[in-house]
Every structure is written in structure tokens, then in C-alpha cells.
């Protein structure tokens, strides 16, 4: 068994190397690989490192793509947390749920780099507001969940979209990070259920969704239970991947369509090229 655990720690080494190389696409693949390997190992394996690393790869791809002015600082700032995830995972003395706290630490650290200049200046930390919003969204999801059987619905993504921007703008506590994680994991498998197409397949989302809503509605969050549910959902997701490989239905909808360049930008580029060409043929 220790050799099998070694495989997971080797996945983590590869993930860290991909982060250092700024190869976030590969980092995402390696994080998925960690979760697939965890699926093979079945009981008692903590999926959370793979899930957090996947989130980190996506956040950093965004930070780099948006050419955030503080990209290098963000990378330096988060690097020790990536190491900490590995250390916590390999330390058998630690509780597996301790990683939830490292996830929160990561999110608080990366958050400032996910905001635009304007947002950073305008928004502070409004933890109670985030709690209020998340409660509202979970209730709304619960009331509207039948919509998940309909073809054109985007309910889970819509809820996640609101949660994501609320967390980014106002920050959150551990409970919100856990809620966001569980729902995001659920979206991974829901994508496959929609892709498969049958109503019976889609209905499989309900028991999982009920588990998520029920655990998140408890007065005091049960981190062990949340971890168990997360690992269960992620394990199902990797099995879906083995059955259907990559499906793109959701992604295609979410890609922003091409757009027109602003007129003043066109004019300025035009002036520059004209000037260069003019100099060339003079």
C-alpha cells in the first residue's frame, strides 16, 4: 500500500514542478491524475490535495491570462502554501480535514490577485455578507433543483458564478470555501449527466445534491463528513471521465464569443501600421 501512496506523492511532486514552470494546463491535468489515482485506491484516500491543486492551476491560469500586474508576487506568495498542502498530506499525524484550513489560507492569499484594481480598491472583507449570500443561494438551489432535469438550465453554474464573485469580492470563512468546493465538484459530474442525456442519468444528481445541501445546512460544519462527500463526488467524476472522456458541452457555452475591438484601438493600431509602412516605402 505504501507504494500506492508513493504514487500520489509523486503526482504532487509533478504538480509542484508544473506550478514552478508556470505550466498551468499541465498542472490541471496532473491534479486530475492525482484524483484518478485516488479513485483506484478507494477508501480512506484524501482527494482534497488534487482538488485544491486543480483550483490553484485554474486561478493562476486566469491571473496569467489577464496579465495581472502582481502575477510574480502572487506566485511567490502562494508557493509556500502549495508546499504546505504536500507536507500536510504526507504527515500521518495530521487530520485529513486540516487541509480545509490550508485551502482557506490559500484562498485568502490568492484573492487579492484575482481582483481588478477597481475591485481591490472598492471592496473590503465582508464575511457576514458572504455567509448571508451563501445561505440564500443554497436555499434558492434547493427550491429550484427540479430545474436540473431541464435541457437548457444553467442552475448550478449560475449559483457557482454568484458564489465565486461573492467570495472574490468579499472573502469568506471556512464554511463558504467548503460549500463552494462541494458544489463545484458536483458540477463536474453534472456535466457528464447532462451529456449522457437521459432523465434517469440526470436524476442521479439529486441524492448527491441532497447530501451536499444537508451537510451544509447543519449548524456547525462537519468537516469530516464534507471531506467524505467531496471524495465520493470526485471519485464518481473520475469514473465518468473513464466512461466518456472529456466532454465540452458546458465549456462551449461558457466561452466568451469574439468581440469587436473598440474603434479608438482600431484607429491607433491603424495609425501605427500606416506610419511604419509609410516610413518603409518613403
Amino acid at each position, binding site marked *: 500500500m505504501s507504494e500506492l501512496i508513493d504514487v500520489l506523492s509523486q503526482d504532487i511532486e509533478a504538480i509542484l514542478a508544473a506550478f514552478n514552470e508556470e505550466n498551468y494546463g499541465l498542472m490541471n491535468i496532473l491534479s486530475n491524475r492525482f484524483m484518478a489515482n485516488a479513485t483506484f485506491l478507494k477508501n480512506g484516500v484524501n482527494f482534497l490535495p488534487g482538488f485544491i491543486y486543480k483550483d490553484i492551476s485554474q486561478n493562476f491560469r486566469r491571473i*496569467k491570462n489577464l496579465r495581472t500586474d*502582481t502575477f510574480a508576487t502572487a*506566485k511567490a506568495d502562494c508557493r509556500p502554501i502549495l508546499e504546505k498542502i504536500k507536507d500536510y498530506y504526507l504527515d500521518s499525524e495530521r487530520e485529513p480535514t486540516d487541509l480545509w484550513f490550508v485551502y482557506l489560507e490559500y484562498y485568502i492569499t490568492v484573492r487579492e490577485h484575482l481582483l481588478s484594481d477597481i475591485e481591490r480598491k472598492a471592496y473590503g472583507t465582508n464575511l457576514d455578507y458572504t455567509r448571508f449570500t451563501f445561505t440564500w443561494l443554497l436555499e434558492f438551489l434547493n427550491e429550484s433543483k427540479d430545474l436540473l432535469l431541464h435541457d437548457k438550465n444553467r442552475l448550478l453554474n449560475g449559483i457557482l458564478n454568484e458564489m465565486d464573485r461573492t467570495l472574490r469580492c468579499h472573502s469568506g470563512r471556512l464554511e463558504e470555501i467548503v460549500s463552494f468546493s462541494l458544489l463545484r465538484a458536483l458540477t463536474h459530474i453534472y456535466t457528464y449527466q447532462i451529456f449522457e442525456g437521459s432523465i434517469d442519468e440526470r436524476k442521479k444528481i439529486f441524492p448527491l445534491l441532497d447530501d451536499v445541501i444537508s451537510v451544509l445546512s447543519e449548524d456547525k460544519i462537519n468537516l469530516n463528513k464534507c471531506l467524505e462527500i467531496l471524495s465520493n463526488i470526485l471519485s464518481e467524476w473520475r469514473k465518468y471521465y473513464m466512461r466518456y472522456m472529456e466532454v465540452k458541452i458546458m465549456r462551449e457555452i461558457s466561452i466568451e464569443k469574439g*468581440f469587436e*475591438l473598440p474603434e479608438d484601438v482600431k484607429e491607433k493600431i491603424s495609425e501605427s501600421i*500606416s506610419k511604419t509602412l509609410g516610413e518603409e516605402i518613403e
Partner: protein
Amino acid sequence: MYNIKDAIEDIQKANPNADMKTIEEALINTIQNEILPNILINIALPKGPSPGQLKILEFRSRRGGIRVKERFEKLQKNINLLKNLEYVKAKLEYIKYINSSQEYYFYNGSGNQFYTFAHPDFIGKTDYGDPFALLDETREYMRPRLISEISKSFLKIDIMESIIGKIKEEPVFKSFIKIVETSLRRTKYEYEISNININELRDYEIPSWSKIIINLTSKTDDFDESITIWDSIQKHVRDDLISKTKELSEDEKELFNIYLKNLYFHMELPEE
């Protein structure tokens, strides 16, 4: 001059949620399909030498030395470019003339089929070949360069191992490095720098001694230009850091000023 980086910044401001790939595609497509044809149609082309003048220059080049020959070859190249540009311009004007719906159309000469100018298959399908051969070549020439310019326009900054722990542990230092990075990315010479790394020098016998070194790698081989870039960048970054101190508490300001005092800019200079 307005460059690709300026364009990307302006496009990002107008489309804050667009990712880099979408911006890249929009920028390249607009340059290729809209801006370039418009420039070509409106460009005022100079008159080249008359055939008689050209013949005289050719005779001179035969008798002259290497330099005279090279000058003549260059002149011939420019004349060819002018001819091609005139040809494209004339055809584009014709297309504009027959255009009836605000789009460019082109008659393919072999039947009654028209293609919109922006159609991706257009150039391959035309029987004329020539009118747009230059445009086609220009597009092929431009595309990889545009992509390369776009990727280059995000300056590579590496923060070295020695500083990473300090960023995590000392909030004021983190704030200091953040301003340094932001300022470096916003200097007007960002385009002239290929690489930056931020490092720390320490003396382990004197733990309090520490210097932050910004290593700049300039793209230019020109000594004077390098000096100008080095001087301007360090002034720009220092000014940004000084202006930030106004927002700090007294304790933070004290620490900030220590970092500022120990900040150095290093650039390998080309030989004079």
C-alpha cells in the same frame, strides 16, 4: 508609438472578462481583415523613379562599387513593393466601388460568384491570385509575429527563492515587492526589457545586512539606450514606491524606507 501592448491594455479595459486567447484572436483578425485592407486602400504611395531614371541608376550601379550596387538592389526591392502595393490598392478600390452592402466583395473572374473579403477561404479561392497574393503573404508574415509580440508583451518577472519566504512572512515587504512588480510592468520601457529577476543579497555574518537586487535584461545592444532604460526604470519604480509611503503608518513607513534604501537595479550593459 502605439504598440501591441497598448492595444491589449485598451482591449482588456473594454472587455474585462475576455481571456487572452479571445483578445489575441480578435486583435489578429481585426488587423488582418479590417485594418490592413483599409490602410492599403488609403495609403498615399510615393512616385518611384521614371523608367529612364531607373535605367541610368542601373548603369551607374554596374560601374560603381559594392555600396552603389547594394543601394540599387534596395531601390529595386522598394520599387517592387510599391508596384505590388499599387496593384492591391487599385483592386481594393475596385472592390469598394462594386461593394453594395458595406462589405468588401470580389468578383472571381471566372463566373458570377462573389466572395466576401473577410471570408477565410477567400484568398485561396480567387482566380486572380495576384491582387491578394501580397496581402496573403503579409498576413502569413504578420500572424506569427503578432502572436509572438502579444506573448512577449507580458514581461517575465521571476522572484527568486531567497525572497519567497520573506514575502509570505512580512506583509510590508510583500506590499513593497507588489509595488515593485506593478511598477516594472507599467514602465514605458517594459517593452525594451526581456527579463527581470528580483533577488536578495545577504551577508550571513551580518544578518541585518540585506540588499534587494532587480536584475534587468535589456533587449537593446546600444549602450546609451541601455543607460536611458536603466535610469528611467529605476526612477519610475522609486517614484512609485515613494508615493506609496504616504499611505503607510509610521511603523510601516520606517520598514518600507529601509527596503527602499537597500533597493538596487542591475543591468548588464553592452560595450560602449
